[in-house]
């Protein structure tokens, strides 16, 4: 296979259980044959030719997310994501889905604090149709007022189902709002109810015109395609689209105007939420860091050592030990382009006192810098990461996400090579230092949600 070469990395040492011979240690790399072109207007296109099946996947990343929303317009990025399926100049409302699904494909999109991402997968003969559809809505979105009002209802319904009726969603939403208060990450991606109801069509249109620019987008195409043909078709439709070369500065100034990303929340802080869960859910969040630096990778590994899998430190100490306190526990290092949060949480068992759990959790976290961290635990996580990375590459969409995410977050689709080296090179000492620096005795935001609060 030309486009993908696998050699095993991350040597696996012997398990604690006796084996006849240890797994061999080998070195190597993942490699994609990515063809790249950047148009004069800044639109970047990445193509991986994969002839496995006569299908392709087409991703468009726009570097705009909820962090760019001003007070009063929260939820606009996500609302706009919905509206991108509601009609443009050439393809009227409803035609996008009809053409994609009617040609045997599927499509969807998602919005985060940093990005809005659109993707379709279809049989290969419909490549030109997809490019035409995407080019049309990228330039000529209609934002019909009636459709916009209908879609507000849909988003409000989504908000209810994901967050308002789910205690897990509420606690996460509150954590982000509290920890990132006064920064652009302090507003929720789904938006505030009043903002969703009142944000004007003009404001949404202005938002679209500002951020849906060629030099703010990356297109990734993976599948049974010819790169030259992909470049040519996209350039034909989007090559002449004017772009705002000041956009990077506009974005930077805007983020500064919205408060910048320095943490402003005074910690420690304790938040109690009224919910419907019969047993408390608890979450503790520490100031994290943004994506890209070495510490970000170290914290990824730390979160997995602490809370990924049933043999993880917290799971063993809080769920599977002789006197369990929690029904489940998790840890995550959520890194975004400008900041991050390291959080741990879970659901208490019926017999567990919340205050006791808070004390126990903090004690465990403080101890974890010595007790949880070992060479074996570190190697275990590296092995898990390797499988996770490799197994995600089974489909065109998996490959497109893999290189697309690296392009937008690191500015380099090849970053996965450095990334793997970084993970592989992380030492136990570094893990311990990061634990001391970011977790041990660090002030934190604590939240709980419970019907009895």
């Amino acid at each position, binding site marked *: *296979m030309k486009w*993908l070469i696998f050699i*095993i990395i991350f040597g*696996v040492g012997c*398990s*604690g*259980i006796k084996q006849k011979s240890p*797994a061999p240690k*080998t070195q190597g790399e993942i490699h994609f044959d990515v063809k790249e072109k950047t148009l004069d207007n800044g639109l970047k296109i990445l193509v991986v030719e994969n*002839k*496995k*099946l*006569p*299908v392709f996947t087409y991703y468009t990343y726009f570097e705009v997310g909820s962090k760019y929303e001003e007070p009063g317009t929260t939820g606009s990025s996500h609302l706009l994501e919905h509206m991108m399926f509601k009609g443009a100049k050439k393809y009227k*409302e*409803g035609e996008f*889905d*009809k053409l994609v*699904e*009617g*040609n*045997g*494909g*599927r499509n969807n999109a998602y919005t985060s604090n940093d990005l809005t991402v659109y993707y379709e*997968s*279809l*049989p290969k003969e419909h490549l030109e149709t997809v490019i035409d559809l995407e080019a049309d809505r990228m330039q000529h979105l209609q934002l019909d007022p*009636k459709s916009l009002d*209908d879609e507000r*209802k*849909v*988003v409000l*319904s*989504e908000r*209810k*189902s994901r967050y*308002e009726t*789910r*205690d897990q969603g509420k606690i996460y939403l509150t954590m982000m709002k509290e920890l990132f208060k006064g920064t652009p990450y302090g507003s929720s991606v789904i938006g505030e109810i009043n903002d969703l109801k009142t944000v004007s069509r003009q404001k949404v249109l202005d938002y679209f015109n500002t951020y849906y620019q060629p030099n703010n987008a990356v297109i990734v195409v993976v599948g049974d395609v010819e790169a030259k043909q992909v470049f040519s078709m996209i350039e034909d439709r989007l090559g002449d689209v004017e772009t705002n070369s000041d956009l990077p500065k506009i974005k930077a100034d805007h983020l500064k105007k919205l408060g910048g990303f320095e943490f402003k929340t005074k910690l420690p802080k304790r938040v109690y939420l009224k919910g*419907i869960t*019969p*047993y408390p859910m608890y979450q503790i969040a520490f100031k994290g860091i943004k994506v890209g630096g070495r510490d970000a990778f170290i914290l990824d590994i730390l979160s997995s050592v602490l809370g990924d*899998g*049933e*043999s993880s430190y917290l799971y063993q100490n809080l769920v*599977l030990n002789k006197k369990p306190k929690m*029904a489940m526990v998790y840890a995550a290092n959520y890194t975004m382009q400008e900041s991050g949060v390291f959080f741990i949480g879970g*659901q208490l*068992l*019926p017999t567990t006192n919340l205050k006791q759990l808070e004390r126990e959790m903090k004690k465990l976290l403080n101890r974890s810098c010595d007790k949880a961290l070992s060479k074996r635990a570190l190697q*275990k996580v590296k*092995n898990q990461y*390797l*499988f996770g990375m490799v*197994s995600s*590459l*089974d*489909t*065109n969409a998996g490959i497109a996400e893999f290189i697309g995410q690296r392009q937008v977050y690191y500015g380099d689709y090849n970053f996965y090579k450095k990334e793997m080296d970084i993970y592989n090179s992380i030492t136990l000492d570094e893990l311990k230092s990061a634990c001391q620096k970011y977790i041990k005795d660090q002030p934190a935001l604590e939240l709980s949600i419970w*019907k009895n609060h």
Partner: protein
Amino acid sequence: MNKRILILLGLLLTQSVFAKNYLDENLKKLKWNDIEVVWLEDDSLPTFDVIFYFGTGALADGKGKEGLTELTLSELTSGTNQFSQSKLLESLEYFGVVYGSRVTHEFSSFAVSGLEKNFSPSLKLICHAFKDAKFPKAELKRTKNRIYSGLKSMVTNQGALANRVFRYESMKGTGYESPTEGTLKSLKRIKSRDLKKRLDYFNNKSFKRIYLRGSKEVLGLENIVKNDCEWTQGKSEENKVVSKLPKPKVIFVPIPKSNLVQVRIGRSMMSSEIAERQHELKTFSGRFMGGGFTSRLMQGLRVQAGTGLTYSASAYVSEQRNYGRIGISSFTEDERLPTLLTAVKNILESNTQSIEKDVFERAVRNATGNYLLGLESTSDFLKNLLYFDHVGRDYAEIYQYSDKVKGFSPEQLKKMIAKNFNWNDQVIVLLGNEGVKKILSREKIQFVEKNYQDYL
């Protein structure tokens, strides 16, 4: 990419007389200790997938011990005579493998995936667990406590709770209604010895089949199955025939502080319906009504101007060997519930009367294309083979799917929709806050009120 797989999957797009013969030649079937092995040779990634299939499912739990099969397989790693739970878990996770069980009423499976270089040690460990699991009482007690806590907390996940209630009510009396994970009552009755007995049954008496995906390296599983699992073949089991369905009704389940009404509409299928075959047409009818943005329900309830009744609406028609399920799933705000119910009814009925040509043709293209996309992952393809074997269908039907769907007519589809989604046959479950009762009464919708805790 393995050429065999390329050709096999490529054939999905062609109507080839030669396809069947090629499939027979290139998909390897082996036998180890009389156990059939299906091997999908695929070296495109340095990973493996193994699925152990057992012809024993939750039906074998017996009355009063529902959840036994699922608990047995999930507790396999709770400790053996040789290794503690923490040691087992740590070793498996050290190898970076992902594993887990899936239990349906008719069959069970245990899947293991990982990097090929860790194939042998991880599968040996899994087989060791199958052979030697002792289900320590203390670990079992802790697991049960976690499950109880999860069930009692289900009120915070109203979608999942609605699914649970709907399963029970739409399948009541068929023998397939109980949740495979058990209930608060049934789990209390399950003891460590029950799990040992069930595992013993799996190992020595249950019908088995093994599914493999990977390079030739995965053939090393033969020795592991023979020497570590020590498995031999067991007997096939008869499953329960469904000859009677619950009466259509509306069930309302009040939930505290809910600001959405979960809506589930559907019914079970009788064994005689399964025996009629027409599998592709049945699933197509489900997809037509509720699969994707251009499906009839999504168009009618979310997309069309002036609606915006819901964020999500879906439908399915799915079959196992002896039973099947037909369902519609959605949610809406309290006050909009009557509008949504009326809209669903009208959409169902109108599509039994007429289907526009372009809508039909689009749905056909959608079905055939999506089917292909669904097989892109060779891991998913393996699961498809398992399903086909379980329900007794020929693999040839996989690549004949496209031709079959293209051969359907709107008339056939209308009839199938009328049969599957006849409004008068449906069980309707509504889950929402107390105030919904007034709305139902105002609309003169007769309902039976139930307590959600009765379903936990």
